[in-house]
């Protein structure tokens, strides 16, 4: 079956209330993001099928600096981030056979490796709750996230969709994904009942499902 392109799944331009990227640039920004994702996946398949070193080098070049930045922003010490990165790419190089492109893109699979390794290490070190507090990298609350920052954080693909969510649903997604807070922590911090956070998350996720549900 032919995969629909990202631009086909975007809302009509007059429905968009997101000022960034400008409507005429949006399709191309989204296409580039989609191209990058597809390229990463193609490279990982080459690594899996042919142990292709050049493909691995290129994939490393594309993702390693981003994973490193992500870990460091999350409060991880430089040496720990470096170790985790090596663990993850050792798995990518030696155990690429575990990757199944029908289930996830390369970046999603590699994200799950990063996440699982981080959880393992944190649990081994008797996870310090203060780390969770350090994880938040924006103390100014959700209002300080300008709409263009949404696109920076989530990428143009998701940023465009987030711009159209009601503020309280957007806030739950941002706090969960960008600030690394659980729904329980979000409820405590915002002073609303946990049930309210759950229903906001459910509504926000329905939009995610509607926008991207068929893509993977």
């Amino acid at each position, binding site marked *: 079956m032919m995969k629909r392109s990202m631009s086909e799944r975007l809302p009509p331009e007059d429905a968009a209330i997101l000022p960034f990227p400008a409507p005429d640039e949006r399709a191309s920004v989204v296409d580039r993001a989609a191209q990058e994702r597809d390229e990463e996946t193609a490279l990982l398949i080459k690594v899996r099928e042919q142990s292709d070193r050049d493909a691995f080098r290129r994939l*490393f070049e594309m993702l390693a600096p981003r994973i490193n930045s992500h870990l460091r922003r999350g409060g991880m010490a430089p040496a720990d981030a470096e170790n985790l990165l090596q*663990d993850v790419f050792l798995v990518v190089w030696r155990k690429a056979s575990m990757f199944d492109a029908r289930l996830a893109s390369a970046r*999603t699979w590699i994200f799950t490796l990063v996440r699982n390794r981080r959880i393992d290490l944190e649990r081994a070190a008797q996870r310090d709750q203060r780390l969770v507090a350090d994880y938040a990298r924006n103390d100014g609350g959700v209002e300080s996230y300008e709409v263009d920052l949404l696109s920076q954080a989530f990428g143009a693909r998701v940023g465009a969709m987030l711009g159209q969510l009601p503020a309280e649903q957007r806030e739950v997604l941002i706090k*969960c994904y960008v600030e690394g807070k659980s729904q329980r922590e979000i409820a405590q911090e915002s002073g609303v009942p946990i049930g309210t956070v*759950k229903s906001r998350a459910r509504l926000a996720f329905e939009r995610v*499902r509607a926008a991207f549900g068929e893509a993977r």
Partner: protein
Amino acid sequence: MNAMQHPASGWLMDYACGHLSPAFDIVIATHLLGCPSCRADLQLAEGLAADVMVNDGALAPATAADDIFTSQRAAPDMPGWRPSGSMSGEPALAAVAGNYLALGESALRWRGMGGVAVAKLRSGEGDSLWLLRARPGAVLPRHSHHGSELTVVLQGAYVIDDQVFSVGCLEDADESTRHQPIVTTRGECLCLAATTGPLIFDGWAARLAQRYLGI
């Protein structure tokens, strides 16, 4: 058949981002084992998190790609969370149930009362993971919660009001919920449950039992 009961999306988002304590992580993972539609939602939730990771700036690491080829280190054993396609649904959950029950008396310290027994599997980060086992037709004491309580059914079924929770179903309760599960008469019910903080029981007899069970 009865409709499957699923975790709210927020739980899948927390699971995708790695925000959950081990107890809640295990309960969600167990539901996912038996639930293809939540696995599809999880893939979406992980896809979002992957985009956030990739858009989180760039900082060149000291490690180079070529270091990986020559590394003497063992790759860590981390399969990435993917339940195997060869076994999912009820058989997988039955296997999970069997594994727990096979642990036997030495590993599981069951404490029982009135047809209901509980065994604490682990606790940490303020949360506990429990195995609950109840005789057919058992009525659990009515209770509420200080925090979240997630329960996944491994074997049998129970009813709350007009909702049936059968194998694979996940019940999501918290401080806003006050419930009294009743086990169906068809067979023994085995559940895995994660809780934050102690439960709040109605009535002195139940509170006395609570002290004994340590739940």
